[in-house]
């Protein structure tokens, strides 16, 4: 059986998609998959994904309906507005919400590992996270990653 390992380090909406899309698809293709969530990536394992947002600020490649100066992008509420607009767009284009892709990964036996060090660092509670995940460190991840066909850092 082929294997794939992904390290998910980002907690923004755009960067949340690649690990879940690749993880669920690889599982559908018969891969054994593990995803290690560390630093901001840990947000992707929380029960509540409402903190996973997108910002046009510092993200000049983000397509905007109207050109928006940086001074405007930094105004309060802009991040929530951009997130709402992006989620709306994703829905209209038939892209699955993160929660759905995450469930599909778990249904397909993709193993999620939360970085214990980051859990301690950010004072997260284990009850903040979804069920059926493991907690581990670098050595735990590397034991699996060392024997994979594909290993990605996202």
């Amino acid at each position, binding site marked *: 059986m082929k294997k794939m390992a992904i390290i998910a380090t980002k907690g923004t909406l755009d960067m949340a998609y690649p690990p879940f899309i690749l993880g669920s698809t690889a599982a*559908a293709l018969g891969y054994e998959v593990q995803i290690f969530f560390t630093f901001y990536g840990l947000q992707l394992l929380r029960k509540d994904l409402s903190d996973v947002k997108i910002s046009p600020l510092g993200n000049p490649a983000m397509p905007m309906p109207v050109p928006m100066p940086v001074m405007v992008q930094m105004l309060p509420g802009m991040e929530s507005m951009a997130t709402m607009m992006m989620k709306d767009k994703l829905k209209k284009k*038939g892209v*699955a919400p993160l929660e759905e892709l995450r469930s599909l990964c778990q249904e397909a036996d993709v193993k999620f590992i939360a970085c214990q060090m980051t859990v301690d660092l950010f004072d997260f509670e284990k009850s903040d996270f979804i069920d059926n995940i493991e907690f581990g460190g670098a050595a735990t991840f590397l034991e699996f990653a060392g024997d994979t066909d594909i290993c990605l850092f996202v």
Partner: protein
Amino acid sequence: MQVDKELDARGLNCPLPILKTKKSLADMTTGQVLKVVSTDCGSVKDMQAFSNQTGNELLASTEAGGEYTFLLKKK
């Protein structure tokens, strides 16, 4: 050709057509044929890649009026 099961994947985008195809095949038996209809043009290459990697034979891949129809034979 006899179709044993149909999957309507219209309106869904990558990777959902593939994931739902996989799920649909899961409760079928060897030799049965699954028909998938999708509106995602990316699914044309993806369905072929899915077939190549999983061994479920892609019997047909056609397009008509913006809809893509695939026939897959369960491995």
